[in-house]
């Protein structure tokens, strides 16, 4: 059989019979052999592969779908969103109110350089004293790996992120670039300042999308985001069980998927997942219930090391974790003002250096709620925000008798052997 473009839909349906019985690798091997024989073209092979992925995705359970979403840079939801003529805008970091973008028919995309392993392009500009998360993001930006983005939003979250934005803006500007000056304090004056910044932001977003952020639209977006937060809180509750039915890796994957998926679709997946896990069997391999403390963490290899040692990550205070969903937004008639207040008062990172007490209280509260046996404070090398606050966290956890370990890492997986040794020793210390 020699496939012609006209035959393609029919041929595809024939070929896809394989997907139920064959693994993707076997399927692709089979197709490749046909291509080598000159019986199909490369383009057709690629299309078949995409079709295969789509069909496979349709038949996945919700957990697998969410995991799949969390491990890829783009996905079919983004593709569909863009097909409808709507824009996708990337952003850094936890204090940007996504609701404003969503209300303007823009898909907020939280930047994560998934599967980054090196930073050659970024290293032309940034230095080796800059953190590898920032360098990975910049590397992907310079290599246009986020080609689906129509814009980029950043803020003065830390020295590395704001400089990565500078370089991205100067060297590979996207059609829309916007920066917000987020206060480091959360007193009345700071809230007023941030409210003004958000008004400027809203105007810029409206101009970009051509869609006005009306009171109704903003209320609806807030409702959708609050729904996500509530569902994630409910989802996290399962980690309180003696033997949680999901692993720490799965827990984190589910949250990560929220950063790259329109929240309405994400909420549906999450609702499905909550049903699925009711009947899921729990693993009893659990020696120590652990908390992960820190910043931009999506290194699943790291959690795997913990869980291979029979530790279980049951809760966290990560930027990419519970700090995203923990606080529920309560609005008043001044929606922009309430958003400013909410984002400056939500569970924070050390850039809010005055909120140490609140941060430590948050950690202690979660330790009690999730019956945590030990806390892993992990930070990316050259992060002075988390590096500078570690000693206060250690002091607090010592006071309440919770074992604590402070681990330095790179954003991408490296030196895993040394990490394994330290994690194993830590878990043994807890179990004794």
């Amino acid at each position, binding site marked *: 059989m020699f496939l012609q473009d006209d035959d393609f839909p029919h041929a595809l349906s024939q070929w896809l019979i394989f997907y139920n019985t064959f693994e993707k690798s076997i399927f692709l091997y089979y197709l490749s052999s046909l291509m080598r024989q000159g019986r199909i073209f490369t383009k057709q092979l690629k299309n078949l592969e995409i079709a295969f992925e789509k069909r496979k995705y349709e038949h996945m359970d919700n957990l697998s779908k969410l995991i799949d979403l969390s491990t890829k840079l783009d996905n079919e939801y983004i593709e569909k969103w863009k097909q409808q003529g709507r824009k996708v805008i990337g952003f850094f970091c936890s204090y940007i109110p996504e609701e404003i973008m969503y209300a303007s028919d823009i898909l907020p995309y939280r930047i994560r350089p998934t599967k980054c392993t090196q930073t050659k392009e970024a290293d032309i500009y940034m*230095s080796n*004293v*800059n953190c590898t998360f920032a360098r990975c993001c910049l590397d992907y930006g310079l290599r246009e790996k986020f080609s689906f983005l129509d814009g980029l939003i950043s803020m003065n979250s830390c020295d590395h992120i704001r400089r990565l934005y500078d370089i991205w803006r100067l060297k590979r500007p996207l059609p829309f670039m916007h920066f917000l000056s987020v206060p480091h304090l959360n007193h009345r*004056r700071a809230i007023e300042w941030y409210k003004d910044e958000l008004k400027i932001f809203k105007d810029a977003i409206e101009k970009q999308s051509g869609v006005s952020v009306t009171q109704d639209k903003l209320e609806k977006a807030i409702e959708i985001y609050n729904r996500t937060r509530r569902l994630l809180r409910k989802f996290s509750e399962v980690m309180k069980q003696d033997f949680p039915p999901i692993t720490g890796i799965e827990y984190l994957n589910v949250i990560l998927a929220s950063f790259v998926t329109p929240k309405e679709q994400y909420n549906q997946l999450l609702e499905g997942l909550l049903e699925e896990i009711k009947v899921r069997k729990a693993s009893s391999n659990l020696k120590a219930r652990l908390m992960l403390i820190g910043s931009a963490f999506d290194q699943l290899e790291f959690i795997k090391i913990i869980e291979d040692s029979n530790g279980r990550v049951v809760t966290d205070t990560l930027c990419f974790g519970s700090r995203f969903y923990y606080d529920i937004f309560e609005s008043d008639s001044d929606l922009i003002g309430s958003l400013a207040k909410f984002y400056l008062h939500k569970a924070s990172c050390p850039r809010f250096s005055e909120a140490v007490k609140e941060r430590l209280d948050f950690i202690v509260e979660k330790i009690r709620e999730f019956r945590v046996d030990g806390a892993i404070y992990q930070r990316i090398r050259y992060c002075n925000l988390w*590096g500078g*606050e570690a000693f206060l966290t250690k002091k607090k956890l010592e006071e309440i008798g919770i074992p604590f370990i402070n681990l330095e890492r790179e954003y991408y997986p490296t030196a895993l052997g040394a990490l394994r040794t330290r994690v194993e020793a830590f878990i043994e210390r807890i179990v004794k």
Partner: protein
Amino acid sequence: MRPEKEDRKNIYREIKDTLESIYKYVSSKHPDEAWAYLPSLNFWEKRLYAEDTGEKIIWHNFTTIPEPFYAFDLLPINCDPMTAYMARFPNVTIAKWVDLSQKYLPDHVCAFDKNLLGLVLSDDVPFPAAMVGTAGEPCDSALTVFPAISKHLGIPHYMIDIPYWKDERTIKYVSNEMKGLLSFLEELTGRRLDLDKLREVIKYSNRAYELLHEIQLQRMHIPCPLPSRFLMVDAGLMVSQIGTTEIISYLEKELEIGRKKLEKGAGTIPEEKKRIAWVHLPIMFDTKIWDFMEEGFGAIVVIDVLNAFKNILIDTSNIDSICKGLALRELNTTMGMEVRGPAEYFFERAIQMARDFKVDAVVFGGHTACEQSWAIAQLMKDIVYDELGIRTLIFDCDGLDPRILTSEKMKPKFISFLETLQ
């Protein structure tokens, strides 16, 4: 439990002793310049005896302006120049305190902050009554460690929030932050602000700004009439003693030296061959590196980033105009303004320094912990070259800790760079 005062080391005494030895060194090598160290000696002597006199010491960070403290008769210590003096302790520099702090902080945290925490943990320093810092500049190290120390000590502290921008809205916001600082100091001292006293302090600081501006104009002359060595002293005094009369007499004297040289048409070194702008933190543990450049190559550092003050004079009509002026100064602090906002702030200041001071070369001796500057050093180098055709030497070091790069290892970098400029 803290040891009794008599059993504790007092680092202020060691700083004073070090300053005395610097004074002696300068007296022998450059006798006409020894007077320049007297204001600093007096400054530390006052702090040394503060525990006995009952005067309150305030610790503040590099980018917090000290005028408000003087208005309340407090004794401010800018912690970064304090560490800079300690970096010149014979043999030990700041190693003891940095190493101690690294039990609690990662090595990449700025040595200024590590040293301060080390001092606190070692009990080698009298603790202050309060701490005041800036949030938003100069860096993440200062943002976290500085307030963390005050929390560790359990003493009051105030953070001035500095936005990313420098527009009118920003000035208004920081003006209110300054008012907040004045209220904090009222509460700390139990005294109402004496507006006349604040006016007096501002009057002195305005005069200091005017004088420094004239000195900057002198430094723009070819050949430069003032030595590099004064830069470090000028910057140390401007960020610590501005608002006092001592700095005025110091700057007047420096200006007079420059004036005499200019009248003779002479430079401070016999043959000025190359003029350099040092656009990042200077090397503080060994300022003799500048002597080496002057004596060996006729290369003089005519300006460094710590001295790139903008001439901001404050209108003392009322509290609003004063706070607005203080905000403007706060937003234009050296090592604050250029590292706080968009990269363009950094590039503009580097270009302005290079252009105004008619330099032949730029040096970026990158303090390792200045991650915000390191991220754009390469871009800055390209932009300075594209705009002005001037080359930049970039190398990494720690301005305070010679264990990262010693002066001896630094010298060959200068030699090869200066040779390429011939």
